[in-house]
């Protein structure tokens, strides 16, 4: 698999999807047509033990062993394991991608993720809110409006410095494209400027994406959201210590 192909996995999963879609042959299936609406909720749910194990596999055992684990239920995420190191591991579903992501409703997505304490405090509340509202049947514009309101009322926190997450699980399924997965860390920053980190440039090991959208034109209200960038650094091993494919 070439480096560009591997990049495409991430590009299609969480980064610069618009560019990828734009270059795909017209005859290829449009993911928006594949996943136009939410599937029955059962398709997003998992066996409890399997979900806990997958969530923990996002980080090396030295981290996830003592982490809290949250699991998806019909109404949102609930704590399945109470941790003691401040980290929270979970399995993100497709709707945690950008609001205009073509796989937003893909029921196969299982994104194992362990958030460090600053991210657990300042990023996870957004995931809780988004998930609860979507599972309650609200539309994307309604969810966006509710999050906007919660931010303005300071019901949702500002991003804490040093917010990081590990996504090093061999068992994740991040996208229908390519090899579906690859180990990486994600660093959250309030900058709007990808260039500040040299991200998305030729041979740079750093990729970045806007947390909220692929295209600022997709949902007008998102343009007024606080800037939130996710910087992704590919690492060379899975969480179990085995080597990952070259990227």
């Amino acid at each position, binding site marked *: 698999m070439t480096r560009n192909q591997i990049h495409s996995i991430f590009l299609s999963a969480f980064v610069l999807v618009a560019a990828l879609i734009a270059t795909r042959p017209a005859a290829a299936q449009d993911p928006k047509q594949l996943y136009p609406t939410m599937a029955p909720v059962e398709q997003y749910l998992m066996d409890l033990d399997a979900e806990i194990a997958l969530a923990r596999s996002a980080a090396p055992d030295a981290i996830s062993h003592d982490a809290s684990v949250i699991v998806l239920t019909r109404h949102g995420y609930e704590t399945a394991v109470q941790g003691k190191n401040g980290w929270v591991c979970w399995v993100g579903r497709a709707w945690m991608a950008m609001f205009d992501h073509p796989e937003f409703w893909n029921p196969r997505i299982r994104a194992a993720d362990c958030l460090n304490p600053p991210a657990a405090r300042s990023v996870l509340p957004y995931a809780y809110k988004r998930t609860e509202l979507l599972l309650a049947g609200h539309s994307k514009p309604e969810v966006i409006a509710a999050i906007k309101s919660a931010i303005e009322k300071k019901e949702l926190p500002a991003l804490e410095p*040093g917010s990081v997450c590990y996504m090093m699980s061999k068992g994740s399924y991040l996208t229908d494209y390519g090899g579906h997965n690859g180990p990486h*860390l994600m660093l959250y*920053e309030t*900058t709007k400027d990808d260039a500040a*980190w*040299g991200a998305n440039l030729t041979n740079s090991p750093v990729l970045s994406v806007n947390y909220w959208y692929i295209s600022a034109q997709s949902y007008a209200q998102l343009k007024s959201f606080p800037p939130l960038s996710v910087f992704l650094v590919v*690492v060379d091993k899975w969480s179990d*210590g085995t080597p990952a494919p070259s990227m």
Partner: protein
Amino acid sequence: MTRNQIRITLLSGFALVAALIASRPVAAQDAKQPYPNMAPIDQYLMDRDAEIALARGASPDSISRDAEVLVLGRHGFETAVKGKNGFVCIVERSWTSAPDPDFWNPKVQTPICYNAPAARSFLPRNIKRTDLILAGRTKAQTDEAIVAAIDKRELSAMEPGAMCYMMSKQGYGGDSVEHWPSHLMFYFSQTNPATWGADLPGSPVFAMSDTREHLTEFVIVVQRWSDGTEAR
């Protein structure tokens, strides 16, 4: 613990480097104080064009071609190339970038490209350290002066988003660790390494914490050199 002592700890944490160290234990232990004093300044200086090229090699060309480049002069670092993207590339010398046994090793040359927040908040520490060293201060005097300047806020705290690239195939890390793995570094004011899961078994993150400088550096090894070739 000084920054150079901390570097030894970090180096022992790098899997790739640990293997390298393990393969050369006798050489490392026998070489007691091979560089007890500063060498003549000329031994630390480089050909200007070679230094610019080496500095730029710290990051992919897509970043470094528009970066400012500093080169070492007899009294400190000087701007050799004006940049336009906020990055600053530099070849650091032993007194800022090597473990203690190599503190005066004139062969040490570590290329680094700092992003703009790091160039504003971290790089000034190494510029000042270099100025003091070249002015004849001892290592201890330099350490004291840097700590004092930080405490007096003459040197700033780390800015959010401060990071650097150290992805050069070239350079020389020191006699015990001749070459660092290709990596990125992220700078924070004093932070608990556990916050990033650093230094734990299986973690891809390593940390250096210097309580005197109120500084924590997180290191993530990457797969490729700055020219895109495989690094492992």
